[in-house]
């Protein structure tokens, strides 16, 4: 009974909120003209790409990882995606040509893959590493391993702020080189076997998102309200699958300052006909009572079972925890990293430019960190391609993956 009521109510709400949304858009455009609500300026069209192209205050310190993400976010519209896919096909083929040359560069290769907006950075790294094997002219396993190691080191040092890149490289090397069978074969067949494994690993990583989406379906019930933070491709996939399964649910999106990721996500969701409501980042506690669950992605899952994610996740998890709402994390297993931050400052800082829209006096400091660490006690479950895990199992899986 209750359930039915709830469902109808949601349905009503859904229709209602769609209307609301339209109204809101008008409001927003109105606000935008007023100076006070200039914070909202990244709401509509392409401002995102704008932000990334604006001159940085300190170009060296900027996290490349977040740059990539920002670039992806700016263009993530589905139609653009198709175009990009087509465009990227070319460098792909040229890459294999490149492989034959002596001057093979992992970074170039990686950047080639990275441009594919639908490809996670770790998967791009995995593809790039596979290309390293393909292009390698080593004649012994030892040489090949050293080459791989070098390649992964350059990749890692290229962007130290990206957790999934580091984790992806490490896992790849583990996965590929830890086969006892390799020792008994001649080098060429061993190499092809390595390639095979590399391809397989890349495939597994690609499928991860689908698996997670399937796993999480049991947790999204009809009539529920989901709060999401940040633009995570996994979370989007989860919600998309849920919508395809005809689940009735409502999504609250945080705005996601400064790159407006929430706005982008709400655009995507509204295209899928999912009722969605935008919140200010600071309105999370205000609207937490109508939320049934919090869904976030992760930049990295660390050994303690906590996650490193876009700034604001910790805050939301704290609020949700204090109101007894479950916090679910969707993260592929290649984001599992052998890191163990003790507190927020115990990580390599990932900085990004922040636009305040008004001139900020030079004396005023700006916190530009792009991410925070959410300790495991505030998380309920992690949806990964290894299964639905409680935070304390992460360390178990990590030990098994890396040992």
């Amino acid at each position, binding site marked *: 009974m209750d359930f039915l009521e709830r469902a109808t109510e949601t349905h009503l709400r859904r229709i209602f909120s769609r209307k609301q949304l339209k109204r809101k858009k008008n409001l927003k455009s109105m606000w935008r003209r007023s100076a006070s609500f200039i914070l909202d300026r990244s709401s509509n069209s392409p401002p995102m790409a704008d932000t990334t192209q604006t001159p940085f205050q300190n170009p060296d310190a900027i996290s490349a990882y977040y740059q990539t993400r920002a670039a992806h976010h700016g263009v993530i519209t589905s139609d653009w995606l198709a175009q990009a896919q087509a465009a990227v096909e070319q460098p792909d083929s040229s890459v294999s040509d490149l492989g034959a040359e002596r001057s093979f560069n992992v970074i170039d290769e990686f950047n080639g893959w990275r441009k594919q907006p639908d490809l996670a950075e770790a998967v791009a790294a995995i593809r790039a590493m596979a290309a390293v094997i393909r292009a390698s002219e080593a004649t012994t396993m030892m040489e090949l391993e050293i080459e791989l190691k070098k390649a992964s080191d350059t990749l890692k040092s290229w962007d130290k702020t990206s957790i999934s890149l580091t984790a992806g490289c490490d896992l790849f090397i583990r996965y590929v080189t830890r086969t006892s069978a390799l020792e008994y074969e001649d080098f060429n067949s061993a190499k092809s076997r390595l390639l095979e494994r590399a391809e397989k690993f890349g495939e597994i990583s690609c499928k991860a998102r689908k698996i997670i989406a399937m796993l999480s379906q049991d947790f999204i019930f009809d009539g529920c309200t989901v709060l999401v933070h940040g633009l995570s491709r996994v979370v989007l996939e989860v919600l998309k699958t849920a919508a395809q399964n005809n689940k009735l649910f409502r999504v609250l999106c945080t705005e996601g300052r400064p790159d407006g990721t929430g706005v982008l996500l709400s655009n995507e969701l509204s295209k899928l006909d999912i009722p969605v409501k935008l919140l200010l980042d600071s309105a999370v506690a205000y609207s937490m009572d109508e939320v049934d669950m919090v869904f976030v992605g992760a930049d990295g899952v660390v*050994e*303690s*079972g906590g996650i490193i994610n876009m700034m604001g996740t910790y805050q939301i998890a704290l609020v949700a925890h204090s109101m007894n709402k479950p916090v679910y994390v969707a993260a592929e297993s290649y984001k599992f990293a*052998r890191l*163990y931050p*003790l*507190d927020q400052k*115990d990580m390599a800082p990932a900085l990004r430019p922040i636009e305040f829209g008004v001139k900020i006096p030079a004396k005023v400091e700006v916190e530009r960190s792009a991410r925070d660490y959410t300790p*495991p006690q505030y998380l309920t479950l992690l949806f990964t391609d290894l299964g639905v895990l409680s935070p*304390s199992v992460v*360390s*178990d899986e990590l*030990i098994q993956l*890396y*040992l």
Partner: protein
Amino acid sequence: MESRRNPRAVVDPKVRQVGFFTSSQPDSTHQPDPIASESHPVASSISPSGNSLSPVMIPPPRHNSSDTFPLRAAAAAASAVSPSSFSYSTRRDFPDGSMTASPGRVSRASFSKPSSSLPGVGMDSMAAAKSSSVPASGLTTVSVVNMPPGLSEKESDQKKNSKPLKEKTTKAERRALQEAQRAAKAAAKAEGGKAPLVSSGSVASTNVKAAKPAKPSSQKNDVAVAAPGPSEKKGGQTEKDRKKDAPHPRMQYDDESRVVKAKRRAVVKQTEAKNRVELFRHLPQYEHGTQLPDLETKFFQLDPMHPAVYKVGLQYLSGDISGGNARCIAMLQAFQEVVKDYSTPSEKTLNRDMTAKISSYVSFLIECRPLSVSMGNAIRFVKNRIAKLPITLSESEAKAALQSDIERFINEKIIMADTVIVKHAVTKIRDGDVLLTYGSPTAVEMVLLHAHELKKKFRVLVVDSRPKLEGQLLLRRLIKRGINCTYTHINAVSYIMHEVTKVFLGASSVLSNGTVYSRVGTACVAMVASAFRVPVLVCCEAYKFHERVQLDSICSNELGDPNAISKVHGREDINYLDGLTNNANLQFLNLMYDATPSDYISMIITDYGMVPPTSVPVIVREYQKEHSLV
């Protein structure tokens, strides 16, 4: 955590009560058991002094007893030392006070007179006693409660004399009574057999009889509660007891028969300390300083003991070797010597004979000092290697293989593990950190020195505690390297904690529920740190992990020399306790270890990397897998 501690403090008296019963029932020669059990409800309702005695109040009776029995105490000889005599006495004087509640007892009459007249006098003394004992914490209250046993221990001598007689009579009576009971209802009989409560109404002898059958069950409970180890171990215990004469590593020292048995075969003759604290009676406590000369003279008589093992044992005994790693390495090196000098006796196989030999050595080492978990794991490794030696190997080959195995264990599991831990831990030290450490953990020392070598800028706070003052040693070594240090005692830890950014601790063992078993005081430091939201990092090699689960520091612990806390070295003016050390009213509790619950620990750094305390079982599992493969 808190929820666990608080109720305990409140319930304390009840816990005590239970303890009395279990320990006393087996040996009860008198009738007081039933009274004791009855006393509480009755005391409040029936007795003349009932209105003044709250049902929970156990301390008052004790004072009554001590007040009312001074004569007897003086008259009695001051011998009664065996643990069993404690249990008599505990039970004895406890009911004494509550005798008021049971006026109808025949043999009681003589005792109960003085105590029933107590309300006036007794209350005064009680109040006085209360004022002295109230400020103490949970632990100390326990020890305070014990005082009467110690005191009445002497009184109970008197009872002891009468004990053999009584037992004879009871044996006869028991049969008659059993028959009588059989006639009674089955249910009532069962109850009568189990709980002295029921039979309390009858004659004194009945109670004795009733208490006896209760003995085995209560004892079993004791063991089950106190030693929640794997069942596999327990099975080994009985087997060992029968065959190999090796005392179980976690023998219950309040079990009289076992202690006697163990004493008979002991090499080291230790005099047991007289006044032991109630909660810690299951642990061995000896008077220090008595055994060493005795053992040294025995050196040439002990032909089965290998000199290397003997030497290590003596070093344990005198405290020359301390610290988990040092002890373990010393033991393993002694075993290497043993293996080197070993030759298989005729008509025996190396695998079996060597295992038996090692077992006997281990039992000797246990007599010198209880094993640490790390040593237990190392012994398990050695025995496992011996058992797995292929029979096809010749003796010399087998010996060489064993020696290299032990060598490898030392290198891989201890020395290499430490370097790996250092490598991990150093990444957590940043410039400007203020690191706190407690005691003198070797792993942490290596971490600090290495971080200093890497030119990290940090400050170290060494927190220390009496009586060992191990921190001073650490301090000396750190200062020599030019590290900026602050030294303080644990009393100041709550003051100093606000400036600390990270706490590094060592551990004697990490148990599979994440509990860290370490030098006493560690739990205190960890709790203060977590209250101040300072991350607590524990450095511990994986070979010290154990699959056991421990919830408190009571059931498995080690008692140190009580003299160490009764005297302050180098301070002649602090002599308040001079001449009181043998006082029956005074008990010293010098605990060696405590258990830190996993809630207070942010991270455990092991040779497998940095893991949260929740994944200790994973490490234990992986470690054992590796072990079985190796």
